[in-house]
């Protein structure tokens, strides 16, 4: 329960899902197998996605059109991950998880001072672009989505990684959509938060029918994440969590090293 609350709270604070924290807790401290930990983490990803997407302020940031098109690729990626996950040894999964954690740590250090896009509400937003009202700057923001094939590729990769190691995949999609495709960071984060639910379902359902989900622990973790993410958002509104991001990037790097060592043994 504490792990769930902690993971949910940290996830919301840091703007990432809690999977990178929950999987090691379940795997190393609760001694579940790596796949069981991944399965429970995916259940909590669905909870996070559902609870973070319901507020009206978040909903107007979500680009439903872009999200639904990219979901084709995240779910196909998720299914591909499923085909791989039982072919991979635990050792390979450890390495994959360690690499993902290094990437998350890197992203967290790099985006500790988030920029907002320059608003130009008059542009034609195209097929997948969108516009929204930014409450922080009190301005209308409009954007086109550039390099759409890149968005497709990253979504596919994020989906595969999601099923393999039990994270939502937002940590890969959000920076890519922002930096390469021109989606403002807040819109990218909100759209990704909605998408990770559909992505995680592919893996979670598969693990569920294979009996990998330890139901009582999954219930505890999901309830913990539901409570934790609300707490995290409440705290996040008052602080930018800059120092915390740096500390957690350090923790993640340590975890990555730990998993590299486990893989090497």
């Amino acid at each position, binding site marked *: 329960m504490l792990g769930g609350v902690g993971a949910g709270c940290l996830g919301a604070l840091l703007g990432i899902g809690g999977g990178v924290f929950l999987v090691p807790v379940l795997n190393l401290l609760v001694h579940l197998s790596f796949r069981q930990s991944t399965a429970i983490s995916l*259940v909590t990803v*669905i*909870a996070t*996605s*559902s*609870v973070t*997407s*319901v507020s*009206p302020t978040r*909903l*107007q940031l*979500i*680009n*439903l*059109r*872009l999200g*639904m*098109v990219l*979901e*084709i690729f995240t*779910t*196909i990626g*998720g*299914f591909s991950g*499923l085909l791989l996950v*039982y072919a991979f040894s635990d050792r390979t999964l450890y390495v994959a998880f360690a690499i993902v954690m290094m990437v998350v740590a890197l992203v967290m250090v790099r985006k500790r001072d988030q920029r907002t896009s320059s608003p130009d509400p008059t542009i034609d*937003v195209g*097929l*997948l*672009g*969108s*516009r*929204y009202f930014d409450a922080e700057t009190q301005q209308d923001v409009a954007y086109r989505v550039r390099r759409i094939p890149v968005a497709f590729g990253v979504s596919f990769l994020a989906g595969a990684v999601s099923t393999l190691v039990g994270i939502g995949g937002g940590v890969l999609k959000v920076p890519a959509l922002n930096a390469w495709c021109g989606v403002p960071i807040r819109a990218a984060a909100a759209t990704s938060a*909605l998408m990770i*639910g*559909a992505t*995680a*379902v*592919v893996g*979670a*359902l*598969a693990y*569920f*029918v*294979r*009996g990998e*989900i330890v*139901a*009582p622990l*999954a*219930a*505890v973790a*999901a*309830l913990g994440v*539901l409570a934790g993410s609300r707490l995290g958002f409440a705290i996040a509104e008052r602080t930018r969590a800059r120092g915390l991001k740096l500390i957690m990037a350090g923790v993640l790097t340590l975890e990555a090293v730990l998993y590299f060592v486990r893989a090497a043994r």
Partner: protein
Amino acid sequence: MSGEGFERLQGQIETLLGGGVIVSAIALAGGLLLRFAGIPVAEWVLDAGLIALMALPCARIAFSFADAVRRRDRLLAFATAMVLCVMAVSLVYSLHAR
């Protein structure tokens, strides 16, 4: 939001996810309590809570598909139909691979 006409879908998604989370949280918490009390239906209630939670994104996509068809939005109708197909294929595959 790109274009007009998403307001109805936004409202539906808000109601669906908000209500669904509460329902599944109640089932999960109830299941845990029943299990703690040693009542045998606990496993069923826990599973129901998990299934309710996993059904939320699927239901959201299904609602979006219906909305896209209603608005004659071919791109979104295609996208959401594809996603539902991938989910179905994945489920069938997992049931067979057990």
